[in-house]
């Protein structure tokens, strides 16, 4: 199932490249494939058992056994949601491109489909090296998509983008290698945790660039401005979530100790990014600038949630990732629509587009309002969870986050009113049409998803991690895999390091005395992992009602 999710778009890409389609048919076929991908995801959703912890729908095949590298994919609850967001946004992006009629359609649509496969692969990979491979494979189509179909400054933008991300990724490669060689296997499920802060920082660097996090966002403004709108949508909506996934699945899950040690600096950078992005977005001179910097701010927020390292933060980060993916994709597609009509994105030359264009006004207004996290919206739910989570790490983070909500209101309202309201701007021709039915065709589903999530955010947040407790899920995931002592000890260690206020209950099949022995063994096992043990670790939060 998971493999099918990866291979369907990849195969589609090959077909688009290799067969002599006309522009129309290439686009149609790509759209069909991406819609089929959405269907496939829904099928996956139905098959997925949210009550069961651990990896589901996994697939495992040998690849490079010498170094313990294998093709191992599978989905957790949260990855399923990220995949869902991806396929929806990608379908919308393909639809947008089809509607605008990109030149060199075969190359273009093939790359889009390939990109879809790579991103889904990132979210599904359960092997470090496979993850890295997908992570990099993601970059290739993006590079070309921006570089070939982008705006006039695309060459510089792609260069910056690629050098930045690769500098990060290569550090990650170093980290992957060191970790994998130390562990003797690259499998994410069966290997234990590590306490090496440098390796941890290698991973964090890559994800910090990809997200991006302040101050690694130097590539962001140019890339988001110069890319074709639908690619910007994918970049900020989907690709940045690969970083979120990586931080959660690798940096936090595999490095409980370093996560704990380096948490404060990371939170500081995330908070700075949040405020900084919001402020710069407030002064950004163009539509895409506002969205771009708001993305920076939002990623800071999501990282705050991740490094809150508690269930509220995790739930919130996943929810907010899905939200932000849909939101910024919608906003970028709308920005694309506006730019097509006015040939500019400069706020000072826009204005008054609401009059006579109710569909455009409604879409932009709705999306913008959700984006500024008006209470009751899905974005609000996500931010609320994140801030409630990070509140436990210190009130200051939540205060900064709450302040950022105000700033978000400022920049989003500025954007909305600069485009829709006031007098008609000099760049807005009277003939500029309202959104066409085709445009509504891909915008409405996105907005509908957002409204649906607003009505029921728990659909995602409650189902991102099995059971009621996110971290319990993380711990159980390890314990329920094969339980060599190393893995169990790692789970135990992770619990110790990451759950300050948790009780850890260790039970074995036999009796309480055996449990006590097991605990001793586990403590020892943290230092010298060897042998095997039959043990289940469960976690409960101290003082919970």
């Amino acid at each position, binding site marked *: 199932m998971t493999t099918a999710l990866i291979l369907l778009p990849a195969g589609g890409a090959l077909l688009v490249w290799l067969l002599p389609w006309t522009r129309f048919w290439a686009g149609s076929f790509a759209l069909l494939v991406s819609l089929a991908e959405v269907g496939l995801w829904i099928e996956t959703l139905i098959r997925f058992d949210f009550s069961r912890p651990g990896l589901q729908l996994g697939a495992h095949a040998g690849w490079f056994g*010498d170094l313990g590298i294998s093709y191992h994919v599978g989905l957790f609850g949260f990855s399923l949601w990220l995949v869902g967001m991806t396929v929806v946004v990608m379908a919308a992006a393909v639809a947008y491109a089809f509607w605008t009629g990109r030149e060199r359609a075969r190359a273009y649509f093939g790359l889009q489909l390939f990109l879809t496969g790579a991103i889904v692969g990132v979210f599904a990979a359960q092997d470090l090296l496979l993850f890295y491979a997908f992570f990099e494979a993601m970059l290739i189509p993006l590079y070309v998509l921006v570089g070939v179909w982008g705006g006039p400054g695309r060459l510089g933008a792609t260069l910056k983008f690629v050098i930045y991300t690769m500098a990060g990724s290569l550090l990650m490669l170093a980290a992957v290698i060191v970790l994998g060689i130390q562990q003797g296997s690259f499998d994410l499920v069966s290997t234990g945790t590590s306490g090496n802060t440098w390796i941890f920082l290698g991973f964090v660097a890559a994800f910090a660039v990809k997200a991006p996090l302040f101050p690694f966002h130097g590539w962001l403004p140019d890339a988001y401005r110069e890319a074709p709108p639908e690619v910007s949508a994918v970049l900020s909506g989907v690709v940045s979530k690969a970083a979120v996934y990586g931080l959660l699945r690798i940096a936090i899950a595999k490095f409980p100790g370093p996560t704990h040690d380096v948490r404060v600096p990371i939170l500081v950078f995330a908070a700075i990014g949040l405020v900084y992005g919001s402020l710069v977005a407030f002064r950004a001179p163009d539509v895409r600038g506002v969205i771009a910097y708001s993305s920076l701010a939002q990623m800071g927020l999501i990282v705050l949630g991740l490094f809150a390292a508690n269930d509220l933060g995790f739930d919130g980060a996943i929810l907010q990732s899905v939200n932000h993916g849909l939101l910024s994709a919608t906003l970028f597609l709308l920005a694309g629509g506006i730019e097509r009509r006015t040939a500019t994105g400069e706020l000072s030359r826009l204005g008054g587009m609401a009059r006579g264009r109710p569909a455009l006004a409604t879409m932009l207004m709705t999306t913008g309002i959700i984006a500024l996290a008006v209470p009751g919206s899905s974005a609000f739910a996500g931010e609320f969870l994140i801030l409630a989570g990070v509140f436990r790490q210190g009130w200051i983070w939540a205060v900064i986050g709450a302040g950022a909500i105000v700033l978000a209101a400022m920049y989003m309202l500025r954007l909305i009113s600069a485009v829709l309201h006031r007098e008609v701007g000099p760049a807005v021709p009277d003939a500029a049409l309202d959104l066409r039915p085709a445009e509504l065709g891909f915008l409405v589903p996105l907005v509908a998803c957002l409204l649906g999530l607003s009505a029921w955010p728990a659909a995602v947040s409650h189902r991102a991690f099995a059971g009621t407790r996110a971290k319990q899920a993380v711990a159980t995931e390890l314990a329920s895999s094969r339980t060599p002592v190393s893995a169990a000890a790692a789970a135990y260690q992770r619990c110790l390091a990451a759950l300050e206020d948790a009780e850890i209950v260790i039970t074995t099949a036999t009796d309480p005395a055996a449990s006590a022995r097991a605990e001793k063994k586990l403590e020892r096992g943290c230092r010298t992992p060897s042998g095997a043990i039959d043990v289940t670790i469960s976690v409960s939060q101290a003082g919970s009602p």
Partner: protein
Amino acid sequence: MISKPHVDWFALSPEFVLLGASALALFVAVLVPRWARRALSAVVCALGFAGAFVAAAILYGRSAHGHPIIADAIVRDRFGALAMLIVAGSGLLAVGISAREPMRNGHDAEYYALLAAAGAGMAFFVTANNLMTIFLSLEWFSLCLYVMCAIDVDLVGSLEAGLKYLVVGSFGSAVLLFGSALVYGATGQLGLDRIAATVSAQHLSRDVLLLAGLAMIITGLGFKSSSAPFHMWTPDVYEGAPTPVTSFMAAATKTVAFVVALRILVTAFPQEAHLWTVTIAVIACVSLAVGNFAALVQRNVKRMLAYSSISHAGFMLIAVAAHNSLGARALLYYLVPYSAMSLGAFAVVAARERELGQAVTLDNLAGMGWERPLLGASMFTFMLGFAGFPLTGGFFGKFLVFSAAVDRGWTWLVIVGVAATAVSLYYYLGVIRAMYMRAELRLAPAGGAPPQELVLQTSVLVCLAVTVASFFAVQPLVDLAKHAGRALPL
């Protein structure tokens, strides 16, 4: 009474096949009418390389236990056989790339004879087991290459390249020779394993003559593998030589240089590893820095690729410096996709060159990706492969090399490699940028429509296939490398 040593004819079969092809090509040059010379000699040469490939493959299969032969002059093992496989494959592809190369003075048949002869020399080189054989076979294929570089005697660049290669190459050889002499003086031995045995028996590992000799041998091999700071001939020669020759040099010469460097260092000088591993690591870093930095400012694509080959030498040196079995595996694996990518990239350059009738620069590459989809996509892949992106074998090459360094505990080398890769992106992606992202030139091809170069395109496709397949089929390839690496005392 002279008792001749036993000759293992089978072990020499690849060399004989190639020598035979070379000789046949020479006959063609003399006996066959001018119009048929080019095609016939190309076919002969291709058959020679194909035969050598098959022979090397069989040899690989039947040499599970390496042992020296012919009075210990050479050794029959899988390590050498695998290198022969790469050389033969590179030669075959080089023939494909050469097929339509305009040889202005009609020396086609001689060219193919030299190509095959160079292949044979390399085959000897990779199996050589004593310093004399090494020096002689090195000179053998080097002389072939000197001539091939300069074969386009009409072109000043070609002559210049030939002379530079000859002089600097001879200088390097002399250094290697003097080093061999010193080692011979210190140990009294020429055989690689005997040197090691003598050193350990007489506790010579800190002997000054031996170490001075080692330094000179490293220098000589560093020259051949175009590692900085012994690299300086590389860009000039790669640029000036006819492109098919460049492609062959980039792939095959590099392969054999590294294979032999590894063999010498680990077989003859294991006791001096504390010195040469660090030295090689430093050379690796310098190569990475020099190759990448210099490549950044190049406009000429061939020259850029030459610098890129220097930086790749840096990566491969990391594997050598690791001095462990993983390093040997990494090196042997790396060479496969690297050779394919180099051959492919130079093939694309050759195609473009013939189309334009002038040197290929980043500027006149503009729009090529769209005009020539197959070549463009292939070049795209090769560049990504050089840069170490996944879905190409270049990724696993770097991965294995870095793993070997980590395995040795030299994480700092990985960091250097990573930084170098980041820099290298600029120029690799620069090629893609030129091909796809700039406005098309729509240059009128020199002399009418470009000929449909089926042979060359097939070669490029093969390179592409190897590049990509080595990513997915990494395990089988590494298995080959692993068995080959077992022949070395690691």
